[in-house]
């Protein structure tokens, strides 16, 4: 596993790697620095699942505050990021706080004082231990304040004897309020249920911050920063290519922007970035299996049974079906589902529906089980499909963007875009011919300003579909494509250069199903002979998604016929199973209004469906 341990890593590197969490760390540090002695000390609880960067954040906070002389003059820090096990009471917690101060302090006088006082405590009556330890802590602080950085506060609360927990926590709260010198930055892997109980002494005590998952951009930034920190220029360059971005987008989809999981993938990505994504993926899953197994073990047997069952079902399942298949009665399954939901293992898919559907919240947890059952199953195909799909989509967007900008921007900006679009020279020259003939004036497009203001690509394309595609047909675009593939040119480049997607859309719209069939048949043969089936599958998927997006402009009969052609052509070819499935579900969901069809997909499949059909499925 990639060696990146927030407890031992170089502080500067940790600062650099603080992606997506900078603002929270700033807030937490500022709250400490700006807290005046007159006010109540800030108390924070940071909630995020395993691997979401909590340890990393605490370490950065610790280092920043440690370097601040003014702060340290008035504060001590108890840095409790070891696995704090064996805390069963408020007294244990106080002892661990003293231990932590001792462990991280360079002040020999202070550490000796702690050792001395704890030794003395051993000779007193148990009844005295808690109050005496409080007094040791207060006299040790000597009017300074104490910041307690503590991990897994949820586990500590769970570890307290239920019978006495309320009393123990009351004592903690009383102590904090009484002396106004203790401030907590605690972390927790899940929301602590008891903190929402009005009767809990810590109800409303913490300012709770829930960590969000990294966005795609943040995940990209994170991986790139790690690659840069290792001076892995080759990987940095790869990440900037459509293939690299496609890989990363697929990885992001599965890791859902979890820092630790991204790191596991990075480990394999840096070694084998030219390999198939599914190879990297399967190796990462193998690496992650013990990690997921370890926290599955923390569940009760009934909960494990439910997780196991849901993991083996790719798509969401109804609560009643879960109960039936796990042989659990209604009330047990309902209780366990709600507990698993609280622990973050599962999610309800349809919050408002009468029959709730549930699924495993982390796709990778599910896949660890699924791949154990069938290593060469659908998931391998899906991962490769995903990587290809994203990279083709990026290429498509890039093509449209540069091509458009190359024509509409004023000089001298236009030249820059034209140069960027050099690979699309064929397209450009043809487009320019048309515009020179006066077409552009009628296009109705406005000039765009900044490059970030990317135009609505589909809108542009649909406008131009008819005329331009006819033009391509006249130029025997498909023939050029076949020849190019045979000559080992990159299929995706040729695809966009030739406007194949538009051409196919025109054929579908103009009742030319036979032509569509012939063209795809020929493409299939040519690509198979040239080992380009995966590329073709991704490009075909883009056509499929576009048909779904533009379904309202196509007659249902045409859609059905087109679907039939796709089925005839591609059924049984593994590389095409994903797009065929999307077409089928899209057709049933949107055209036949089979709303339940959406639940036939796993969450990562649904995400792709939503992204590429520009729609948010209604659950």
């Amino acid at each position: 596993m990639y060696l990146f341990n927030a407890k031992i890593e170089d502080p500067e590197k940790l600062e650099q790697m603080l992606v997506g969490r900078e603002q929270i760390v700033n807030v937490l540090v500022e709250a400490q620095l700006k807290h005046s002695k007159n006010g109540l000390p800030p108390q924070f609880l940071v909630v995020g699942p395993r691997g979401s960067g909590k340890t990393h954040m605490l370490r950065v906070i610790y280092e920043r505050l440690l370097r601040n002389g003014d702060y340290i003059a008035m504060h001590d820090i108890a840095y409790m990021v070891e696995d704090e096990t064996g805390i069963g009471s408020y007294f244990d917690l106080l002892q661990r706080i003293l231990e932590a101060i001792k462990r991280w302090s360079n002040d020999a006088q202070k550490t000796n004082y702690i050792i001395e006082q704890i030794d003395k405590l051993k000779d007193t009556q148990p009844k005295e231990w808690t109050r005496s330890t409080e007094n040791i802590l207060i006299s040790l602080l000597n009017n300074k304040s104490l910041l307690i950085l503590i991990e897994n506060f949820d586990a500590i609360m769970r570890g307290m004897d239920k019978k006495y927990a309320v009393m123990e926590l009351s004592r903690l709260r009383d102590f904090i309020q009484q002396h106004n010198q203790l401030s907590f930055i605690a972390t927790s892997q899940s929301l602590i249920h008891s903190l929402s109980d009005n009767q809990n002494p810590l109800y409303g005590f913490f300012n709770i911050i829930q960590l969000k998952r990294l966005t795609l951009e943040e995940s990209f930034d994170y991986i790139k920063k790690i690659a840069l920190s290792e001076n892995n220029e080759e990987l940095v360059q790869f990440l900037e290519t459509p293939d690299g971005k496609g890989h990363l987008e697929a990885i992001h989809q599965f890791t859902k922007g979890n820092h630790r999981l991204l790191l596991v993938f990075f480990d394999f990505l840096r070694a084998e970035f030219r390999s198939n994504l599914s190879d990297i993926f399967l190796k990462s899953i193998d690496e992650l299996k013990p990690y997921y197994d370890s926290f599955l073990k923390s569940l009760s047997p009934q909960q494990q049974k439910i997780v196991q069952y849901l993991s083996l079902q790719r798509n969401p399942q109804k609560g009643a079906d879960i109960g039936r298949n796990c042989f659990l009665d209604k009330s047990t399954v309902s209780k366990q589902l709600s507990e698993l939901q609280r622990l973050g293992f599962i999610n309800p898919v349809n919050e408002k529906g009468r029959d709730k559907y549930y699924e495993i919240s982390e796709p990778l947890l599910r896949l660890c089980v699924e791949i154990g059952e069938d290593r060469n199953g659908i998931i391998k195909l899906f991962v490769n499909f995903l990587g290809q799909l994203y990279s083709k989509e990026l290429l498509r967007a890039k093509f449209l963007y540069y091509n458009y900008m190359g024509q509409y921007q004023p000089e001298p900006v236009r030249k820059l875009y034209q140069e960027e679009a050099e690979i699309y020279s064929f397209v450009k020259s043809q487009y320019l011919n048309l515009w020179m003939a006066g077409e552009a004036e009628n296009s109705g497009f406005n000039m765009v300003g900044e490059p970030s203001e990317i135009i609505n690509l589909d809108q542009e394309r649909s406008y131009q579909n008819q005329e331009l595609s006819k033009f391509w047909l006249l130029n025997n675009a498909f023939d050029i494509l076949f020849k190019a593939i045979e000559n080992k040119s990159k299929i995706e480049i040729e695809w966009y250069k030739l406007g194949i997607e538009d051409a196919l859309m025109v054929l579908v719209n103009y009742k030319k199903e036979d032509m569509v069939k012939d063209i795809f048949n020929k493409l299939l043969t040519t690509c198979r002979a040239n080992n380009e089936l995966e590329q073709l599958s991704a490009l075909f998927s883009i056509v499929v998604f576009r048909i779904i997006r533009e379904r309202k402009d196509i007659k249902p009969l045409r859609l059905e016929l087109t679907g039939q052609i796709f089925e005839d052509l591609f059924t049984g070819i593994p590389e095409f199973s994903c797009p065929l499935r999307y077409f089928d579900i899209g057709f049933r969901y949107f055209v036949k209004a089979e709303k339940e069809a959406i639940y036939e997909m796993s969450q990562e499949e649904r995400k792709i469906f939503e992204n590429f059909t520009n729609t948010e499925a209604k659950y």
Partner: protein
Amino acid sequence: MKAIGTDIIGREKEIGELLSILDQTSVIMSSTRRMGKTMILTKIGEIQDLNVKSMLCFVESIQSAEEFVDFLRENLIQQKLIQENGFKSLFNWMNTNLGSKDVGFFKTPDFSKHWKKALNLMMDDLVEKHAGLIILMLDEFPKMLWTMIQNGNHQQATEVLDELRHIRERYEKRSKLRFIYCGSIGMNLVINHLIKRFKYNGAPTNNMHQYIVTEMNPTDATQLVKHLTKKHGVVIDDVLETYLANACSYLPFFIDRIIIQIKISNLVFPISASSIDETVDEFLLGRGNNSQFNHFTERIDTYYDTEEKRIAHELLRLLSKTNVPLSSEALLNHVKIKIVAEDFEIMKILSDLFEDMYVDKSVIDDSTCYQFRFVLLKKWWKSKYA
């Protein structure tokens, strides 16, 4: 009075009122959670001058009378209201009767026979030392008593109440020793429980003034917004400061939390009314956040009987769904469609809901009209129950 700490904003009006009441008598201070009563106590606790000495004690976790007295002794010293050797009467008595001045005695089983004496002598010494107003604030005092009762120690709970009453009576006339009993569960609930369950026949607080803490006034709330946005580096103009204070129903707890959330969300665009609303909604209703007002539900579930509970829920459900205040007539009609109840029963629940700060009332066109007191609670209620 000396200037008090600058980090706790507002509440000057409430503190002024409390101080003038305390000049005359002790106070029972109550409020539902999240109104900021502990902040008020903390601010009063900062007052330490020749005329006023105050001490704030958090006593929720205290389990016995002995522990309570020992805790008071330790805190009087720690908070410098008296030095250890200032307990002259106490030590004289200990020396004469126990043959030792060692306060370790407070922790021995024998102390259970003497805690009342020790408490009285400690108060003697305290009053002897200070001529001005002495305010002893016991936060979550009702909970301390409740814990004692739950632990089977109701006898001690009543004794603590009675002893403190004697002390108040003894000193309130000749000096200015005052107590504030503060708690989120009411003293009346604890005393009623003692009366009903254990035939307690004392009236240990009937000479104390009842003071209820409500939300901040708009000016203070806006000041708090100004202070916290500046502190956290959140850029916001005057109009939005007022808007934010109002969006948080002038509740300091929510103002603090929402400003932190705005800061964390690191908005790319300038803060606007809609981004404030979004943050409030997310904080109030988002996944994992939907327990913010559980205490309001629990209050009904715990203290209203079955029929009352149904009526209260029906009234609140209806009020959470309307944007205008509803007249009592309209509410009566609505409830009676759903529940068999007499007008007076429904009106009683409306009155309870008003007293418990769920709803506010106003007279519109000669009708008494009701609406949720806090916009936040209304939103939360609607999302949860309507």
